[in-house]
């Protein structure tokens, strides 16, 4: 039997959080004062008030076989980055053990160690040896690296005079020639935008039998579903699930509050907002073709907002909804003003429905922005009212989407009272 490429056993990483406004840098004086004061504090029984232990990882255990592509998913703060830091040996675990069989490369350290004053040639050698290549290896691959980066003419120019494109190309050329057996990718840190990453990862999947083991940290369920055979779900520093990707993602999405299930209301009463007008958003929900379908690429999408209209609301209201991708690039925008004016809402609660008949969105996560206002100004603006997940359909090929496809401008807009359940009143 082959040895696993990665074996993680009882891994734990403890951080001490200091509850002080000063942060992590301490001057010697402060440390000395703290030290001097510590015995007294202990006498008073106050010890432990300043420091708290925090386990970023606890009892994490999993194995990755050679050639497997494994996704690491979890919410922010679940310990994904800490896990990557431990696996790439940047920080030591507090407990447990990790075994890595193979040369580790990671796309999070591209260009690390480039010195702006040094020439391209010098930086190739420096960066290569930082990444763990031997000098002979770099000698052998040097011409290849340079040709790959297309910087032949500027080899003896300090990289601080490079264009940013040249700089990145050279950095990636070095990273590419490392030929790792275990590749660690943090999607958040990787250079390039979503479409590019998707393309890269797609190519990676095509060569699944290359023997290269890949560990991918991603927030994009669509990517993980597409690329990874297995997934590990981290939650509060522990492994919540470790199984086939489909199973893990189903569990993950089913986990309450992670993503809103289709048609489920998301409460906006405590959302971050600006504006103080009499009309307020109460809740929002989103679904695909029917209230039980999730939005899919090329499918229709419905966004329903529940508004509470107070006294003094204007008769000239306009409601706007926008969708933005994970990089906050606006990909869709619809304003009630364009189809229905003037808009007047009855006092009390009202449902407002945007129906977009064909929304050409690539699979991924999108944020919903809601605003309501009148000619005078905004009543209520919530820039991150809801996160929606556009999932790839089974028939759809993941390669078809570029980062942003065309968005139809055609949409419908409807207002109806809350009490009316299923009957939809269109204009």
């Amino acid at each position: 039997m082959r040895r696993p490429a990665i074996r993680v056993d009882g891994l734990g990483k403890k951080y001490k959080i200091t509850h002080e406004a000063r942060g992590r840098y301490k001057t010697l004086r402060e440390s000395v004062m703290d030290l001097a004061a510590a015995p007294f504090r202990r006498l008073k029984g106050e010890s432990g008030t300043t420091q708290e232990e925090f386990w970023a990882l606890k009892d994490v255990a999993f194995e990755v076989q050679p050639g497997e592509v494994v996704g690491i998913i979890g919410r922010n703060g679940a310990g994904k980055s800490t896990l990557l830091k431990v696996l790439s040996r940047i920080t030591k675990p507090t407990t447990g053990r990790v075994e890595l069989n193979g040369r580790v490369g990671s796309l999070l350290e591209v260009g690390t160690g480039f010195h702006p004053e040094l020439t391209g040639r010098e930086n190739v050698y420096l960066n290569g040896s930082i990444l763990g290549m031997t000098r002979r290896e770099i000698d052998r691959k040097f011409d290849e690296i340079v040709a790959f980066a297309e910087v032949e003419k500027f080899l003896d120019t300090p990289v601080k005079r490079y264009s940013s494109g040249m700089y990145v190309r050279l950095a990636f050329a070095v990273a590419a020639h490392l030929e790792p057996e275990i590749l660690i990718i943090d999607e958040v840190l990787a250079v390039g935008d979503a479409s590019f990453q998707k393309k890269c990862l797609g190519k990676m999947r095509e060569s699944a039998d290359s023997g290269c083991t890949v560990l991918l940290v991603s927030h994009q369920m669509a990517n993980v579903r597409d690329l990874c055979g297995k997934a590990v779900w981290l939650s509060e520093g522990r492994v919540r699930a470790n199984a086939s990707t489909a199973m893990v993602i189903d569990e993950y999405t089913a986990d309450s509050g992670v993503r809103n299930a289709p048609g489920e209301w998301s409460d906006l009463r405590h959302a971050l907002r600006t504006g103080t007008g009499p009309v307020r958003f109460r809740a929002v929900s989103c679904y695909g073709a029917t209230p039980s379908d999730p939005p899919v690429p090329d499918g229709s999408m419905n966004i329903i907002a529940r508004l509470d209209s107070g006294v003094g609301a204007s008769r000239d209201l306009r409601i706007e909804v926008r969708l933005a991708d994970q990089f906050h690039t606006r990909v869709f925008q619809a304003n009630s003003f364009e189809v229905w004016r003037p808009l007047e809402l009855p006092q009390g609660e009202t449902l407002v429905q945007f129906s977009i008949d064909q929304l050409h969105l690539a699979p991924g996560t999108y944020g919903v922005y809601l605003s309501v206002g009148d000619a005078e100004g905004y009543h209520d603006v919530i820039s991150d009212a809801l996160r929606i997940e556009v999932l790839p359909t089974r028939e759809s090929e993941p390669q078809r989407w570029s980062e942003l496809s065309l968005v139809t401008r055609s949409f419908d807009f409807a207002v109806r009272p809350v009490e009316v359940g299923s009957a939809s009143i269109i204009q």
Partner: protein
Amino acid sequence: MVEAVAEPPVERKLVEVVERIARTAPASAEHRVVIEPESPWKIVDFGDLWRYRELLFFLALRDVKVRYKQTALGAAWAILQPAMLMVIFTYFFHRMGKLGSGDMPYSLFACAGLLPWLLYSQAVTQASNSVVGSERLVSKIYFPRLLVPLASIGAVIVDFIVGCSLLVFMMIWKGYPPSAQFPVALVALAALLMHATAAGTLLAALNVRYRDFRYVVPFGIQLLMFATPTIYMELPAEHGKFFTLLLLNPLTPLIDAFRAGLLGDDIPWVGLCMGLASGVVALVAAFAVFRKVEDTFADVI
């Protein structure tokens, strides 16, 4: 459906990169790494250092090359600095301050003292700032952290070797051929480097947590120069208690021994041996401290 029209070249490259990486067959089976909390008893992981020896070379090379980039005089600074100090010392300490230098010409005396002193002070200064200066490296990638201060000291050694041409020039000019005790000078130099490495790595580690040392080091180095009288004066045969205290400074006999070994004078054997012994002890202690805290560098820096 609209396909992406034209990919920017960077992206295309990136795709190729990942393709390449993915295509690569496992090169060698023997890259096995075990990560676990380590036993505190191992002071230096020599195997690890050896594996990364080329990185040490490249880091040192980087420091050497970067030091005099975009300067008009370049490496000449490695000679100019001690040369100017020598002139200043000769004028102020010798002509005005009437400090003696035995039967040796004062300028040669000062030069032979200044060069090892600059080696020490530069090594400590550069090493102490090295880890903090490599913050990006330390927080992004693994390599033995000890390489960083060691490489910066390596670069200082190169400066020293270049600077030695001044000493050679002075020896020829003043008619002092190297003495037969020359190897003693090398031993003294080695001991001096041990002290410098010890202080440098220790300060580098402390600097990560307490940035105070950024201010302490330059000031401390200045004080230390005055506390090492042999750099600028011949040690008097008769001296008070305070002066005896200064002689406890291991740098004094080491610099003295360097000069005596090179130019042929009485070698302070006791001081040299003590300096050597204390150097070894300091080095082991400093490496132990560095080892103890290096695992937290990425978390604290």
